Every structure is written in structure tokens, then in C-alpha cells.
């Protein structure tokens, strides 16, 4: 079953109503946005459940088991509970900043999906700056962290916010540079072009030796740090900082941070799958199934990291980024450029 056909039909149906073209486009885009939002909300809920299951099975437990089949209704119940909770705003917070921080985190997390192709043709808008757009939008996550840290008027929140901002800024550099290596080879910033340049499995950038795997590993490490997950989960190191930047948040606002976090995890995995594993390309199954399979495989890797590793120390974290990851990814970029230029492996 291909979904794009349905969309085409719906679009034509909308056109046949005789509305002006501008309005048709606005309605189409708005409904696409709403749909993506719905899909992502479901995915985020699923990821919360999945994280619990993965962690439980890594730790030889079962995790939630009582609500529905293997506890699948658990996160739905949790989400509903979280939304019903009293929305507490402590009296000493910087109100506007405190209010807008989760909103920005939430919006930034979802805005990225404008240029992520869920399948063949399943993309809201194939911007020609695709990947650059994603990287630009994710910087708003940092702003939201800083706002949450500052706005909470709490030392733990402030320290957590600053830590995560410092961390995200430093890991953004190797992440972008490792993405650049792929861009050099694809010759385009558009996500669709990048996917289409990996039509065959041996063309996946992950298998372009030697630069592909290096770029992927630097990417996935930097991405783990970007999403503030173990072993880079310093912003929420509970032994030092209680809970990090979101310590003062509760109810709905906390839910927004929480959801944004899981959506971000899905985002970095989706980018990883798109850039290195051929995105939606794959035989037999519909394209969006392939995309989801690959993305969830990468999400699993991130969860695997989280439930296996201890946490780094702040200085070690920075050292790792600046003294190891960055030089490696730069060397890799030069290598990729040279390979492209010399025409080697240029299948």
C-alpha cells in the first residue's frame, strides 16, 4: 500500500471544490502539519513505552505488563495523567521565560519534520537546504534549555541548563561535520536527493568505505550527546543536579519537555537512517515501513547505549568532543572530499 496515492487523491478532491489555489495549498500544508504532529505524538508515546520495555529487558525485568498486551496502554495512561496534573508555576520564576521554554522546545522538535522524508514522496516540503534547515532548527532546543534553566530561578535548573547548552553546542560541531561528509558525496543538501543517491544497498553511505562508517559513528556519538542521553546525560545527572533543567516543571509543561526529548531522539535516528542507511529505500515493503524500521533500529541503539554505559564527567565530556570527535570528523571530511575528488569508490 502506498500512502502517497491517497494524498494525491485527497489533494485533487480539495482542488475540485473550486477553492483558490492558495487556499488549497494552505489547507493541504496545514493538514500535513497536523498529520505529522499526530503521527509523531503516537511515535513519541510508543518510544516512551519502548524505552521502558528495552530497559526492562536489558535489566532482566519485564517493565509494564498489566495494562494491555505487555503494558502497551501504560504510556497513554501516563500521558493522560500528566496532562491532568496541576500546572504549577513557582512564585519566583521568570514567568514569560518559564512559560515559553517548553513551547519552544516542543515547536523546535516538531518543526524539523518539515524536511524529513517518511517515505517515497512522503515529505512536507523538499527544501533544497533540507539538512541545513534541520540543523538550524535544532539550535532552538538549546535556547529552550537555557530559557528553562534561567527562567526556573533555581540553581540546579540553571546549572543543568548551562551544562546541556554547553554540551549541545560542542557536540553540534562534530555532528555537522560528519553530516557534511555525506553531503559532499551526495552533492546536495536536499534530503530526498540524499536518499535517492543511495538506491542500492552498497550505495548506502554507511558502506562507503572508509569514510562512511567513521562519519556514521561520529554522527551517532554526537547525536547521543545532542539528545542528552547516557553516557552524555550530564544535564540531568541526578547525583549532582537533582533533575537538571526541568526540575521546576510539572504537569503539561513537563510533558512537553518530555515529549520533545523523545521526538528529538526519533529525529536524530531518522536523520541517521536517511543519511547513512538509505532512508526509505528497500525492497518489497512500502517505503515508509522501511524508513520506520531503520529509524527504530537506530533508536534502539541509542537506548542500548543509555542502559549500558555509566556517565562521563563534565570535563571528560568536553575533552572527548573537542580533542577526539572533532579532529576525527574533520579528518574524515577531508578524506571524503578527497575520495569524491579523486573519483574513487564513486559508484
Amino acid at each position, binding site marked *: 500500500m502506498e500512502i502517497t496515492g491517497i494524498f494525491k487523491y485527497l489533494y485533487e478532491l480539495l482542488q475540485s471544490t473550486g477553492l483558490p489555489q492558495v487556499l488549497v495549498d494552505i489547507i493541504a500544508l496545514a493538514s500535513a502539519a497536523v498529520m505529522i504532529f499526530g503521527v509523531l505524538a503516537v511515535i513519541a508515546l510508543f518510544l516512551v513505552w519502548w524505552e521502558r520495555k528495552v530497559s526492562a529487558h536489558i535489566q532482566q525485568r519485564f517493565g509494564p505488563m498489566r495494562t494491555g498486551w505487555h503494558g502497551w496502554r501504560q504510556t497513554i495512561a501516563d500521558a493522560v495523567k500528566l496532562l491532568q496534573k496541576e500546572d504549577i508555576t513557582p512564585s519566583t520564576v521568570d514567568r514569560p521565560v518559564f512559560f515559553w521554554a517548553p513551547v519552544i522546545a516542543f515547536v523546535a522538535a516538531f518543526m524539523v519534520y518539515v524536511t524529513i522524508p517518511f517515505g517515497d514522496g512522503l515529505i512536507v516540503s523538499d527544501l533544497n537546504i533540507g539538512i541545513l534547515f534541520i540543523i538550524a532548527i535544532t539550535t532552538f532546543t538549546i535556547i529552550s534549555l537555557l530559557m528553562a534553566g534561567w527562567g526556573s530561578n533555581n540553581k540546579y535548573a540553571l546549572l543543568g541548563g548551562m551544562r546541556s547548552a554547553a554540551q549541545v553546542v560542542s557536540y553540534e560541531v562534530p555532528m555537522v561535520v560528519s553530516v557534511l561528509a555525506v553531503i559532499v558525496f551526495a552533492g546536495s543538501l536536499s534530503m530526498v536527493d540524499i536518499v535517492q543517491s543511495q538506491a542500492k544497498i552498497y550505495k548506502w553511505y554507511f558502506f562507503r568505505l572508509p569514510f562512511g562508517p567513521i562519519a556514521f559513528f561520529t554522527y551517532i556519538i554526537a547525536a547521543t550527546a545532542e539528545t542528552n542521553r547516557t553516557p552524555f546525560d550530564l544535564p540531568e545527572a541526578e547525583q*549532582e543536579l537533582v533533575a537538571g533543567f526541568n526540575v521546576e516543571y510539572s504537569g503539561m509543561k513537563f510533558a512537553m519537555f518530555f515529549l520533545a526529548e523523545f521526538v528529538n531522539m526519533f529525529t536524530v535516528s531518522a536523520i541517521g537512517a536517511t543519511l547513512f542507511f538509505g532512508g526509505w529505500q528497500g525492497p518489497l515493503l512500502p517505503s515508509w515501513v522501511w524508513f520506520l524500521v531503520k529509524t527504530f533500529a537506530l533508536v534502539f541503539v541509542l537506548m542500548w547505549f543509555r542502559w*549500558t554505559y*555509566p556517565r562521563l564527567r*563534565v570535563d571528560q565530556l568536553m575533552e572527548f568532543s573537542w580533542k577526539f570527535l572533532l579532529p576525527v570528523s574533520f579528518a574524515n571530511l577531508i578524506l571524503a572530499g578527497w575520495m569524491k575528488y579523486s573519483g574513487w569508490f564513486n559508484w
Partner: protein
Amino acid sequence: MSCNMVFALAAEKLAGNIEVPERAEYLRVIMLELNRIASHLIWFGTTSLDLGAITPFLYGFREREDILDLFEMTCGQRLTFNYIRVGGVAGDIPREFIPKCREFLGKFDAKVDDYERVLTENPIFVARNKDVGILTPEMAVAYGVSGPSLRASGVRFDLRKDDPYSIYDRFDFNIPAFHNGDCYDRYMVRIQEMRESAKIVRQAIDRIPDGEVRAKVSINFKPPAGEVYSRIENSRGEMGAYIQSIGEKKPLRVKLRGGSYNQLQVMPELVKGHKIADVVAIMASLDIIMPEVDR
């Protein structure tokens, strides 16, 4: 368990004429060593948790669960064990204890290998612990640090070997010791001690004789007047009991000494020049149990 033990030892020493049956001595050793393993498992779990790794915590508790089952089977309690009595132990072990214990020991070494795979060789774990919180042998001795933390600094001092009590002189086991005195060595000492303790328990259940488990001690037992101090090696170092008796049913004074107090005292020396995150690691590696500090 070790508090039971050290108090019983002190009372027996004070009374002077209590003959503890052979089987009871073996049972005491088995329980003490299982307790040491359980305690180190908690330490292992909480340490990894303090360093941000959540999974090893549950691994440690999984094995501790087996030990608690054994204890529950023996004395009916899972936390506040009260099994060792003056003159022996409270009662014999149930019949299924030995096979259960063998089963546990059979898989335990493989589990410790698992722990080592998760943490010992993990570069992040090594980076967090190597050369962090170095406790020099001189400092350790000066502060009266004992137990695994002392042995990690290179002082091979263990009361089980150096001042043997009960029947520890009959078993073949090693006292692991390292020389750097950093958090990593303290970790390694405890991991190896778990293996050694398992070795002791294995030998003990192989050799345990049949017979009585408790010498006759009257309820109105009145020890002679005088004072006595006895000490044993528990999981956190030297555990001591001091009893001052005036020849009555109740002692005049009883003082229990735990290892945590001295280990807490070295903290200010160890954390100098380190990051906040290292304080967490150092504190965890010393295995300080706060309630024990103020006994």
C-alpha cells in the same frame, strides 16, 4: 549478620566457657560470607548508579535477591537478620538450603564476569575512576580506614587472616590487594573479594559437619565482670564490639564500631582538587553507609 557475629564473639570471649559447636561455626562462616557478598552487591549496584549506569544496579540486586532468599529460608528475615546467637546460631538450616546455595554459587562466578564486562573494561567507567580519589597507605592507616578501602591502598590487612576468628584459618582464600588506592582499585578489590567469598562458602558447604548448632547458654546467663573487645572483618572493614560487664544479666556498656566512620573522615582529604562529580564517585567507592557512621 556481622553485628550478630561480633557481639556473640565478644560475649563468648567474656564468658570464656562457651564451646561453640563445629556445625555452628561453619554456618556462621557461610552466613558471614554470603552477607559480605550481598553487601558488596549493594555497593556494586549503588556505585554504578552513582556513576550514571542504571543497569548494573539491577544486576547486582538480582543476585542479592538469591542471597536474601537463602537468608529468609534460614532465619525468616530478609533485612534485619538475627541468626547468630551467643553460643552458636539460632537454629539449623533447612534441608533445601545446601542445594540452593550450591546452585547460587554455581552461577555466581559467571555473574561476576558479567559485572566485569559491563563495568571493569568500560572506558567511561575507567576514565571516571582511575586516578580519582587516591588514598595513600600512610593516610589510610593514619585515619584508621579498614577493609577493602585499605587493601586497595596496598595494605594487605584483613582480620580473617591477620587475627583469625571463628574458623577462618581452615579455609583457603586470598586477600586481594592493590596499590594505587584510587576508586578503580577500590572497585577491583571488592569485585575480587566477592569471588573469594564465594570460594570460602563453597569450601564451607563441602565440609560442613553434622551435629548441634547451639551450645546450651542459659537465659539468665551472667558473664563475669570485666571488659572485652572483639573484632571481625565485615564488608566495610573492621567491625568491633566492646562490652563492659559488671557481672549482671545486662552489660554496663556496649559499643559497636563500624568501618564507615573512619572512611567518612578521609573524604575531605580525598576530594581535594577534584570535580563535584568525582565526589560522588569517591564517596561511592569508599562504601560509606551513613547510618553506620553514627553507631
